[in-house]
């Protein structure tokens, strides 16, 4: 295949956009925690980014897209450290079917692994050891993310080449299963294994900086154009359709979420708007290439409504999914994946496509939940038994930033006036 500079330009840009999502998430999450733990929250994203990027180059790409092993994962040694993945035999850059150099695709895919790991951190805010988190990131991305990416996108069990394709070809345009269901199910399991924050449900734990949350949501949205638009793998009509669907579904989700709040709580909130943004983005992710802009309005609005209700579940069921990774990513990820069965313009129920697409979407969603939950549980329990997850109660009360990172996020006059010595 010849190099297509236009496709390549768009994929380079898409990779850059998706990379930006992780710091965007750090702000989104960081603004939502209390002022005494914002740095730790942000560090969980930055740490996940650092670990995952290195791991991806070493064995992540190979485990996702290397030689298939049982339909579950790629062989990590096949293209270890990208050997054989960048150049062809003649030393020229390998180019994919869209005219995009393989190395660009590698970068693009790495960013998906990164954001998925980072997403999970919101469920266990304010209370876990940074070292345990860093080890978890490396292990989880290896055992849960890379196999899932292989199964769905790398020609594995949940792909068009897998066993369920006989019903209908499963659709996951940009990562409803691999990213959002995966992260959301992991978040649920982790929240349960790690346990509640001291004071959960009784003490106020309100967002300390809502403009930061809105900024984070904005950067996520911006980055998501790469996430969904780039999943067309070139700059064409599908990328454009994904772009428009992403925008309008997200807009509708904001309206849906705000409407629920206005009717139920009496006020449409800015946190609701920011949350609606994410709910809409998540829901449209798997569907962005197969639904119409008109359909996206409904798909998005329903996502907003569903998630606005779902975030309350944790109080009723009593698990401390601190920043609602389950209520937003798992719920909207499931909805978006299943909604394809209704809204896909070619195969969806509402468009006369029958129930087979719906069935296969439900199956891959269920398999994804189960796979992620089991793998996460094993890793989480193993880490609990070895390194331990929790910081001390005193640290939680005094603030994890200070105890774990020896920093406080914001200077106040008093703090600034009492340093005793500076050493380097």
């Amino acid at each position: 295949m010849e190099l297509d500079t236009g496709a390549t330009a768009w994929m380079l840009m898409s990779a850059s956009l998706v990379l930006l999502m992780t710091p965007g998430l750090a702000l989104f999450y960081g603004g939502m925690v209390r002022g005494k733990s914002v740095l730790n929250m942000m560090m969980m994203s930055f740490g996940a980014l650092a670990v995952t990027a290195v791991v991806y180059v070493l064995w992540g790409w190979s485990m996702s897209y290397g030689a298939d092993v049982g339909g579950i994962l790629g062989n990590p040694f096949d293209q270890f450290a990208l050997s054989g993945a960048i150049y062809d035999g003649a030393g020229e850059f390998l180019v994919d079917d869209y005219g995009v150099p393989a190395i660009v695709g590698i970068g693009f895919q790495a960013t998906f692994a990164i954001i998925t790991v980072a997403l999970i951190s919101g469920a266990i805010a304010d209370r876990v050891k940074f070292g345990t988190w860093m080890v978890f990131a490396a292990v989880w991305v290896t055992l849960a993310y890379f196999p899932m990416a292989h199964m769905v996108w790398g020609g594995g069990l949940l792909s068009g080449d897998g066993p369920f394709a006989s019903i209908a070809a499963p659709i996951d345009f940009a990562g409803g299963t691999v990213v959002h269901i995966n992260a959301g199910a992991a978040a649920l399991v982790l929240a349960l294994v790690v346990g509640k924050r001291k004071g959960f449900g009784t003490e106020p734990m309100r967002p300390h900086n809502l403009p930061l949350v809105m900024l984070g949501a904005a950067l996520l949205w911006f980055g998501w154009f790469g996430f969904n638009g780039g999943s067309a793998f070139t700059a064409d009509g599908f990328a454009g359709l994904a772009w428009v669907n992403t925008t309008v579904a997200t807009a509708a989700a904001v309206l849906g979420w705000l409407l629920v709040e206005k009717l139920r709580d009496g006020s449409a909130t800015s946190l609701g708007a920011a949350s609606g943004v994410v709910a809409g983005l998540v829901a449209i992710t798997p569907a962005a290439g197969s639904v119409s802009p008109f359909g996206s309005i409904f798909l998005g609005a329903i996502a907003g409504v569903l998630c606005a209700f779902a975030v309350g579940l944790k109080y009723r069921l009593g698990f401390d999914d601190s920043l609602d990774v389950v209520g937003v990513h798992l719920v909207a990820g499931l909805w978006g994946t299943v909604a394809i069965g209704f809204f896909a313009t070619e195969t969806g129920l509402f468009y006369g496509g029958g129930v087979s697409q719906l069935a296969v979407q439900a199956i891959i969603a269920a398999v994804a939940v189960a796979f992620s939950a089991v793998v996460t549980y094993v890793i989480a329990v193993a880490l609990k038994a070895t390194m331990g997850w929790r910081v001390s109660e005193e640290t939680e009360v005094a603030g994890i930033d200070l105890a774990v990172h020896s920093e406080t996020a914001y200077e106040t006059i008093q703090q600034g006036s009492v340093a005793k010595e500076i050493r380097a």
Partner: protein
Amino acid sequence: MKLVTGVIQPHRLDDVKSSLEAAGIRGMTVSEASGYGRQKGHTEVYRGAEYTVDLVPKVRIEVLVSDEDAPTVVEAVVKAAQTGRIGDGKVWTTSLDDVVRVRTGEHGDAAL
């Protein structure tokens, strides 16, 4: 010497300042505070979780005055801070043993 302390509505601060100036008092110390009392607080909602916040923003002012000026100052503060609505706050007077002006080391009324 007396210390007159007032806890008032933040938006009355400017008027209190003018009123004190009119009464010939050219110094005071101000700080932020939160009040809890008859005036009810408010409710905030974050992702459907309702928070009841019963502290209300207030401003605390402290004015050092000579014994004879104290009633005038209390009067000036009360008048300027009064809106007649619940939550207008309190003013109280304490007797002091001594006051020093840091810059000069002057004691007593000379320090005011």
